[in-house]
């Protein structure tokens, strides 16, 4: 089955990292995977996003006009993607930054207070990993273990950073 997920937020919120970690872990589970960041001039000062597609067979298009899942870390992202989500899709909302609810009723909404939890864990910047943990728990697309392992590759063995992010991942995983 082909599953497409969009991760979206401000440039500094680490949304590309979320998608990347997810994609690497999926690759290790021998899934077909594509990762496509938004790029170029239009990004400037605005939101960043990326699309990760995973599937059991060749992926035609890495682009998603109607993703199965959307992870929105800030309000503009909510606005941008709430209407694109597939009917029946799941919307993950960073409740710390977003005090609105989507208008659509045909989708599932998961609110995660990712920013706050990250703050409690000691580093605001790991909000993305908290969110990703929750995302993986809910979607069951990959295992948490592989996701944690992917951090090792991503952060190239930098122990402290890995631990911090892994902690955030687990925390996010556990709260759902």
């Amino acid at each position: 089955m082909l599953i497409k997920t969009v991760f979206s937020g401000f440039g500094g919120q680490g949304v590309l990292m979320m998608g990347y970690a997810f994609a690497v872990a999926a690759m290790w589970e021998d899934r077909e995977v594509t990762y496509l960041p938004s790029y170029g001039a239009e990004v400037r000062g605005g939101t960043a996003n990326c699309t990760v597609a995973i599937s059991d067979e060749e992926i035609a298009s890495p682009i998603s006009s109607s993703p199965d899942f959307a992870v929105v870390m800030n309000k503009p992202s909510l606005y941008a993607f709430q209407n694109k989500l597939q009917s029946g899709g799941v919307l993950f909302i960073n409740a710390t930054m977003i005090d609105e609810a989507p208008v659509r009723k045909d989708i599932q909404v998961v609110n995660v207070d990712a920013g706050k939890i990250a703050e409690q864990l000691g580093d605001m910047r790991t909000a993305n990993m908290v969110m990703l943990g929750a995302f993986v728990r809910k979607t069951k697309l990959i295992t948490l273990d592989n996701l944690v392992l992917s951090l090792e590759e991503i952060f190239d063995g930098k122990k402290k950073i890995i631990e911090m992010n892994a902690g955030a991942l687990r925390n996010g995983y556990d709260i759902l």
Partner: protein
Amino acid sequence: MTKNKNKKLMRGNAVVGEAAIKAGCTCYFGYPITPQNQLPEYMSRRLVEVGGVFIQSESEISAINMALGASVAGARVMTSSSSPGISLKQEGISFLAGCELPCVIVNMARGGPGLGNISPAQSDYFQATRGGGHGDYRSLVYAPASCQELADLTMEAFDVADVYRNPVMILADGMIGQMMEPVTYDNYKPREIPPKDYILDGAKDRPSRIIKSLILNPHEMEEFNWKLARKYRIIEKNETKYEEFMMDDAKVAVIAYGTAARIAKGAVKRARNDGMRVGLIRPITLWPFPSEIIYRRAASVGLFFVFEMSAGQMVEDVRLALKGESEIYFYGRPGGIVPTPVEVQRLITRQYYQKGLI
């Protein structure tokens, strides 16, 4: 976990860089332009690591001419850009072809004409395959459709450039350059390369050499042009590449390359699921173009459905290949639009029924 140690999730632009390094490329010259910037960026780090040469040149023109110089000196060399920058390299490419120098040129194409935009597009097909530069020459053009193929074809491109002493272009687009997919470099089977007995490295223990394209005498120039033409015939014979997908019993053949071919393959699969006899012919080399297989398929195929992310360029090669033997339907999406497989499938379906292929 079944972590495949040899697979890495890499961005297309970086894949080209790593593939080049793996194929023995020691020199890169280029100038920034979106959407290919990660390639020079990757090279600026990697080539210093491996002791190679990286220069961010003052312009695309300088880049292609520095590349020509490195090729003159016998190095494996690459340059890259995107559409407007590739236009600027046309004189240089013509010189490479005229001097019979190998060089790998990457075009991560974007929407045009003019400044256009930075979205993926396939509107540089004519330029790539017909020689946007002056004179009777051709560049080999590879059109990868995935990051893995980007790796494989980049490595092959260096060999092919050396074997034929000819510029080779990788024509992809912003989407392939920007996306990440798992990639391995294990598929590379280096070819045997003839000794580079033409390069300049100082006339030590041998007569001095000349590299040039200037041939003032028209008769000699004509001779040289026919020599090139003969080389191009050999390339056509040996290097044409394509993929056929579900073509065995196909009544409709979709023809698409690169990004469009990915989408098209998705559309073909969907159409098959709906019971339609649809297949895909994917040119992997755009020049030489796989005309023969297309012509051969005309016997059994009722409609050739050409899909390009342009206003219609490759479709001319399909027409040339078919020599009027079959009907062609063209679906073009220029300007940076990447349609979904569903959209393409819908059009295929309509054509399928309209042609009475039920």
